[in-house]
């Protein structure tokens, strides 16, 4: 529907236009009177009329005439059709032959109502695939649409459609995220797919497990089993580490829609990342079996670092170390102090002494393996330990235990420690001359390795750290030692002799350390005397313990797993941090990455340096779900971690949920319907009840700006000129 009219908008004041017109008319009249005498009245009138025409047109241009055309348009309401394309829509539909997605396709394209076609006549239909994301599609894409990915977020999708659509139609099985209310005013008309009554499935709905577990402490994993259509069935819930059965418990399912939570407990014996999985056996008639098992990610660490410290004599060194260890909640300290030796006088009855026998046999033949770290503090071990105990000690370190020797006069021994074999563990040896030097009074300085080693790197700033060690009180006595080839000196005396003070090394899988002084307590009290904090000493003790016990926080290589493990078929990335502990190696060329799939086969992976020095990004493409082992090798050692990629569908609860659709529809002002024809009728009724949307299109045609206006003026002037010439006028 359209209409038109002429409009004027004068470009100069109207009176001026009138004045010009009157002047023009006067001039034409004057000319008429002049030429009438020469050519006669009729010819003069003809010429004057032509001139009047030109004058009228020129003056009318000042009025800026325009032709206005108005057209009224009616808008069809925009309607969004959301076809659920999540994984559960690939499951069996109502009739048992096609999928739920087939059912939705049929409603839209094939059924009597041919919903999509019918809707398109009255609505501006926009079609969307509604899964992990909301994706616009064409009607031609519908046949190729497949059920894939996680369930969609209806609340979020409605927010996205708000303002762009006036009605939403949802074809879904109800497996959607719905927060219970929508902040939009978009009514949802939903149509359920799937057979909620005939659906049969068993699944592990939830596994509540800690991310961290402590070695030797029971871990409880709560497993929730959900069942549809298996009333009265008893089935086992199985917890495995790889292929090893850890524990299993039977659960009985009461009712057709049953949900049972069962606690599975086990005690991890080793630190690391076991490949745990929880599963329930598949049953006949299950719609889905991929959700019968779940892989778990669990890291087993030490609960407390168990430290056995044996001191050769009471000393301030012992007391302050003990204080440091006792203040660290992660350290469980058992200490023995040799308060008297057999040659000391025992001048009172036994009941008046608090001394206990040193349980050397129990400790060194039975219980040593229960500790993570053994410390000899100025301890003359050769007086107490038989050769077999020393062999046990060597085995303890070889198998991964930590061993620290704190020096002092009792630690000194002429001839060194080579004879009984303990020497081969230590990263140092005696010089063979003088074993212990008192009144030494030398400060310490960091070696090159010590500048970056986690034990002695007490401040992140290199300058501050060096200054901190420079400020440490001088030591009054040291053991005179030489470093072995296997040892790394972190601290050395600054008296010009560069004696090793703090030396570290490896033995088998274990780590060893020698602090060749019994005056480290002066570092503590020296700082206190200066009015400074005692934290550096406490930090040194903490770092020593953690490094010796291979605490993951001090590992030179750290593999940082992503918070979201990703999914099969998508690139997974992990971050790798490598700390250079002083070895002069080029990290870029000497770090290697290997990734193994759940079957143990090496797969393709990439390692790229990150922007920060010593940091890398490792990436690989997991083809399927399961535990992927990531191994990083560098000159600083190697590290392994496991990344558990979820098996597609392992967490899928595929049961149709019409109630959720009903709730969503009602809370948005829409309706939940059972057939496509009902849906069309309801949508039309809803649209009819709403005010019709239309708009008016207005077009403006400026008349004087048109070429034909100028052509017409030119024609009139040409005619006037021609007649004047013809009739002998100039």
């Amino acid at each position: 529907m359209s209409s038109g009219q002429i409009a004027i908008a004068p470009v100069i004041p109207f009176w001026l236009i009138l004045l010009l017109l009157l002047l023009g008319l006067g001039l034409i009249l004057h000319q008429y009177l002049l030429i009438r005498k020469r050519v006669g009245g009729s010819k003069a009138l003809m010429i004057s009329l032509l001139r009047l025409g030109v004058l009228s047109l020129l003056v009318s241009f000042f009025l800026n005439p325009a032709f206005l055309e108005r057209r009224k348009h009616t808008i069809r309401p925009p309607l969004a059709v959301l076809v659920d394309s999540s994984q559960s829509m690939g499951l069996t539909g109502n009739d048992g032959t096609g999928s739920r997605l087939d059912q939705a396709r049929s409603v839209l394209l094939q059924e009597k109502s041919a919903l999509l076609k019918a809707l398109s006549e009255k609505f501006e239909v926009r079609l969307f695939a509604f899964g992990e994301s909301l994706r616009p599609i064409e009607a031609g894409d519908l046949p190729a649409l497949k059920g894939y990915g996680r369930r969609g977020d209806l609340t979020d999708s409605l927010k996205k459609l708000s303002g762009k659509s006036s009605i939403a139609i949802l074809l879904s099985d109800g497996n959607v995220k719905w927060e219970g209310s929508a902040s939009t005013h978009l009514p949802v008309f939903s149509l359920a797919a799937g057979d909620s009554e005939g659906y049969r499935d068993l699944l592990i709905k939830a596994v509540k497990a800690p991310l961290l577990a402590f070695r030797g402490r029971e871990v409880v994993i709560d497993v929730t089993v959900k069942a549809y259509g298996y009333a009265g069935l008893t089935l086992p819930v199985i917890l495995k580490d790889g292929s090893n059965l850890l524990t299993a418990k039977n659960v009985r399912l009461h009712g057709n829609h049953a949900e049972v939570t069962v606690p599975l407990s086990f005690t991890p014996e080793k630190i690391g990342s076991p490949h745990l999985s929880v599963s329930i056996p598949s049953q006949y008639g299950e719609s889905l079996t991929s959700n019968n098992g779940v892989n778990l990610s669990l890291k087993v660490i030490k609960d407390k670092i168990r430290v056995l410290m044996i001191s050769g004599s009471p000393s301030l060194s012992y007391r302050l170390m003990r204080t440091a260890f006792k203040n660290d909640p992660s350290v469980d300290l058992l200490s023995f102090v040799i308060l008297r030796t057999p040659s000391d006088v025992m001048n009172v009855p036994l009941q008046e002494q608090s001394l206990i026998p040193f349980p050397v046999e129990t400790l060194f033949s039975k219980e040593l393996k229960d500790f993570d770290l053994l410390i000899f503090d100025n301890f003359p071990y050769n007086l107490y330990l038989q050769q077999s105990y020393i062999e046990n000690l060597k085995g303890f370190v070889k198998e991964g235990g930590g061993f620290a020797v704190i020096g002092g006069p009792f630690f000194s021994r002429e001839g060194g420690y080579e004879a009984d074999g303990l020497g081969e563990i230590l990263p140092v040896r005696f010089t063979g001359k003088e074993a212990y030097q008192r009144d030494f009074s030398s400060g310490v300085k960091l070696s090159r390795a010590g500048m970056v080693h986690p034990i002695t790197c007490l401040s992140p700033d290199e300058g501050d750290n060096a200054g901190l060690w420079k400020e440490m009180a001088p030591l009054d006595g040291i053991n005179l030692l030489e470093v072995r080839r296997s040892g790394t000196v972190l601290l050395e005396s600054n008296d010009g002799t560069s004696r090793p003070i703090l030396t570290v090394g490896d033995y088998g899988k274990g780590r060893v350390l020698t602090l060749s002084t019994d005056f480290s307590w002066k570092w503590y009290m020296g700082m206190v005397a200066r009015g400074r904090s005692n934290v550096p000493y406490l930090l040194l003790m903490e770092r020593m313990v953690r490094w010796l016990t291979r605490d993951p926080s001090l590992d030179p290589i750290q593999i940082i797993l992503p918070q979201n493990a990703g999914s099969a078929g998508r690139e997974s990335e992990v971050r790798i941090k490598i700390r250079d502990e002083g070895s002069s190696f080029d990290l870029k060329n000497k770090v290697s990455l290997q990734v193994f799939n759940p079957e143990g086969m090496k797969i393709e992976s990439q390692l790229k340096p990150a922007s920060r020095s010593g940091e890398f990004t490792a990436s690989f493409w997991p083809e399927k779900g399961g535990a992927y082992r990531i191994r990083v090798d560098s000159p600083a050692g190697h590290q392994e971690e496991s990344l558990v990629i979820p098996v597609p569908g392992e967490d899928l609860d595929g049961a149709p949920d019409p109630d959720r659709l009903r709730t969503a529809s009602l809370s948005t002002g829409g309706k939940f319907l059972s057939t496509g024809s009902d849906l069309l009728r309801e949508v039309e009724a809803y649209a009819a009840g709403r005010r019709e949307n239309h708009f008016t299109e207005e077009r403006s045609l400026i008349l004087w700006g048109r070429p034909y206006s100028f052509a017409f003026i030119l024609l009139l002037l040409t005619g006037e000129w021609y007649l004047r010439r013809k009739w002998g006028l100039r």
Partner: protein
Amino acid sequence: MISRRHFLSSALSLTAGLFFSIPRPSRGKNFPQVFFAQIKYRGGDWDPNPRFAEAMIDELELRTSIDGLKERRVVTLSDPDLFFCPFVYMAGKYEFEPFTSGEREAFRRFLIFGGFLFAEDTLGAKGFGFDQSFRREMKEILPEYEMKRLLPDHSVYRSFYLMEGIGGRQKVTPFFEGITIDHWTPVIYSQNDLSGAWARDKFGKWINECVPGGESQRSSAFKAGINLIVYSLTSDYKKDLIHHPFIRRRQNL
């Protein structure tokens, strides 16, 4: 010439049939883990028993694995070496001048951050003289902590000997008092004049009589001294669980 210590050591070892079956480590006397550092203060009498250290260290070395330095050292509270003294000792009979604010600040820092002080009123007069001044200073230095009687389960009574009384030259109180911060008691105080009981002249004779208990009271004083030193070097080591059954059994013997 064989020393008293070696004579006793050899004799006991022979008696027990353990003659060097487990030899004593060659710990050098040159490497003491403990020595007495006595505080010299202004006013009063800072040194009532000048000859206590040697006798006590002798007994300490004889009975324990600890090596000590017989020569005591004298420090002032403004001396930075105070912080490197494992066992700080303070004694007196009479009222003394208040410490300066700098001295109090240093002393507080020493005690809060791991130092140890054994103080004793050798006069034994409650509320007078040294006792009055010492309590006043402790209130100034550690106002948030209170000096309290140390209960019988405190580690100082069981760090080496299982003690029931503390002995001394005089018997004013049968217990120690102390200021405890968390699980550590950096200040222990007595009015029994332990050092008076320990003191010997250069000929080896006791300088003071112990009244009223005589030699058993002196013996208890030495036990208390050894316990104090062991406590200063081991803290609450005897509170570790492993010691509990042994100590309980012996207390029930």
